[in-house]
């Protein structure tokens, strides 16, 4: 305890908002994004064209939508590894509905409802049975995609109605796609929920100390269940977009998306241990991931190398804060 004389009045805050903004993780992400943007514009003459920039956004909007909900889930101390499998299952169900003659609105509804249902299933297993989410969602990852494989085998569903193509291929204005608009709109909503509502505050609190939250009358299980439902819902929405963009469903659709979504979340400054993070960081990280993969694409780097890159990036962004802290402690010890 520091023996400062008793301050009768305790100020709300001491740090200057501006200086803390300059040294924030988000500011660093802006710098990184700008640097990659500049490098890309030198690396390829086609990069600065508005339409190629528009194409770039398709690299992250679908995963980014999942990452928004995943960010809340990871902040609360849980994780969902089954998101890509949910995309596959939802897409398969939409494909079956197409064969049965369903129209565009019903298809979109099916995708969203299947996603929500899968999320609720994960949430029930975690909160009712008290199982660790990493184990539950590894299980459901195999389960959901397994169902897609059983239904489809090595077949593919095609024949989606023309109007269905709007979700993944349409533009709302000039080069701004529906996907990008949806991503930015969703980001705004998630930002508000996480940073401006009591629900968001409870999510942070749970991630820092779930036991104390329970003692404080926070309905921890209910909030975690809602977060799993939201993650499923966003996976369902992402499934509608991907299926619409590709115009077909294969059981291997969206393979590896869970890792890219988690990488976005962690790169965005969300603590993998829970309790800290921001939506702005996740949005910036989504842009960076899009810029990097698009840049590598322009340079004709094959997909396999890209997945190596994603893996390395994930390890680095998880390890960096931990190594950094150890180095600092070592110096002061």
């Amino acid at each position, binding site marked *: 305890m520091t023996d400062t004389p008793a301050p009768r009045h*305790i100020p709300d805050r001491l740090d200057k908002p501006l200086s803390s903004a300059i040294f924030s993780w988000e500011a660093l992400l802006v710098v990184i994004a700008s640097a990659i943007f500049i490098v890309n514009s030198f690396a390829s003459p086609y990069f600065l064209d508005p339409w190629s920039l528009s194409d770039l956004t398709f690299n992250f909007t679908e995963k980014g939508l999942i990452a928004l909900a995943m960010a809340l889930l990871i902040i609360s101390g849980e994780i969902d590894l089954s998101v890509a499998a949910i995309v596959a299952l939802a897409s398969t169900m939409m494909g079956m509905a197409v064969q049965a003659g369903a129209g565009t609105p019903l298809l979109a509804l099916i995708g969203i409802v299947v996603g929500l249902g899968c999320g609720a299933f994960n949430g029930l297993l975690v909160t009712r049975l008290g199982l660790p989410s990493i184990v539950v969602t590894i299980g459901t990852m195999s389960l959901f995609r397994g169902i897609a494989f059983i239904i489809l085998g090595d077949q593919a569903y095609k024949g989606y109605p023309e109007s269905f193509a709007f979700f993944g291929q349409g533009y709302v204005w000039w080069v701004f796609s529906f996907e990008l608009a949806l991503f930015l709109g969703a980001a705004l909503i998630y930002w508000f929920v996480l940073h401006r509502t009591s629900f968001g505050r409870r999510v942070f609190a749970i991630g*820092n*100390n779930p036991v104390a*939250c329970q003692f*404080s009358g926070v309905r921890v299980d209910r909030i975690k269940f809602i977060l799993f439902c939201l993650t499923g819902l966003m996976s369902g929405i992402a499934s509608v977009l991907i299926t619409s963009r590709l115009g077909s469903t294969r059981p291997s659709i969206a393979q590896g998306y869970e890792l890219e979504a988690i990488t976005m979340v962690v790169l965005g400054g969300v603590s993998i241990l829970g309790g800290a993070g921001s939506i702005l960081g996740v949005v910036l990280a989504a842009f960076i991931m899009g810029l990097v993969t698009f840049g590598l694409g322009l340079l004709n780097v094959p997909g396999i190398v890209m997945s190596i890159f994603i893996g390395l990036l994930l390890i680095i962004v998880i390890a960096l804060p931990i190594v950094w802290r150890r180095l600092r402690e070592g110096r002061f010890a």
Partner: protein
Amino acid sequence: MDTTAQRKVETQPSLRSGPAASASPRLTLSGISKSFPGVRALHNVSLSLYPGQVTALIGENGAGKSTLVKIMTGIYQPDSGEIGIDGEVTTLPSAHAAFGHGITAIHQETVLFDDLSVAENIFLGHAPRTRFGTIDWRTMRKNAREVLETMRAGHIDADARLKDLGIANKHLVAVARAMSIDARIVIMDEPTAALSMKEIEELFLLIEFLKNEGKAVLFISHKFDEIYRIADRYTVFRDGEMVGEGLLKDTGQNAIVRMMVGRNVDHIFPQREPKIGAPVLSVSGLSHPTEFDDIGFELRKGEILGFYGLVGAGRSEVMQAIAGITRTSRGTISLDGRMIAPRSAADSIEAGIVYVPEERGKQGVVIGLPIFQNVSLPSLARTSKSGVLRLVEEFSLARSYTERLDLRASSLSQDVGTLSGGNQQKVVIAKWLATTPKVIILDEPTKGIDIGSKAAVHGFMAELVAQGLSVIMVSSELPEILGMSDRVVVMREGRIAATYDNKGLDAETLVRTAAGIVA
């Protein structure tokens, strides 16, 4: 250095009499002090252990017993003082060094490995090797069986997995391990806490065996019948100081209780004139399958009701049941004459009962969040509007309660983890008071906090009841119980042993009731 130690050993007063007057102590601790930030755990304490004798270490919770055990096993280093083994001054810089001197501790919960075999547990770290450096399994099993035989514990299969044994047999394995490293000093830290009567008998046979083998045994227990049954000597600690030692056959239970309790003059409790009103909370027949049974009491408006008992008497469990955190099997709780059946902490808070938990770090504060967000956490429904946060409301709520508690912080946006224990406790109490409860349950409200913060918490409790709030205070600190309570409920082994009016009540009565000693 050496000569002073020798002299100290020779002038041990307890050597003058006793069953082993000729023997010199195997282990002597003299003038040991140990402080932690804000807490003086041990001050100039001494302890001697004699071969072939059991010494009981007696003291209230927080008297410094566990700190001493950790010093003896090399986990903590004393700030000052000397450790002598067989009259030679030595140091125990690590657990390994203590092990090397033949000091071993057997804890309440055995620190053995459930998934290893009995033989592996006994010889872990010193297994016999073949000439290729690999473990000689055959010899290890044979030696394990031999050790168990000599302890008359041949019924334990050396190949059994430890997790398949009962707790008493696990203790036997722990002792076998001590035997196998040729331990000369065996520390038993509340070894009977989790045992049944029959298992305790078996443990006592074992301690007799250790005595006959010439081991020096330190036996830590709260239970007087056990101490008188098995120990030869006693040492009493109070508030980190040694206040008495001697032979048990010369000393009565009441004399030891007096030493444990002593007089505490360094803390003055607030003077108050209780204005006690009608019953607010009444509990009857409250039961839990394992933790407590048939709990009934009444709490009145403006009253501080103290709950005293030994650790494990079930006080916290009862309180957590009232606060909706643990479920009950039977019984009723009513608040202001209306029955309530809280199924979660949220239900209790809504009804007007809050529980300030004992485990401040685990159950109280949310480290990582700033002070004001910790305070507003259970009151978010009130500080926000249609689910949208209103920071102005949160800050003013946090300010009004933390300033009343004289919180020392540089700003309300400071991470609560950067505060001292006492100030964290003020944040926790502020958080609960901000919900404007009718009944506040404080579980060990001043455990591990500095004197200044203690006084602030006590002063505030007096202020609360003066405003008509009702307080239940669970405490293991006798001065606090006697200094603050209007009435005192004493619990023993999951039941209410007695309820006293705090008029002319003395500490010895409470300790006797809690320990089940008939006066």
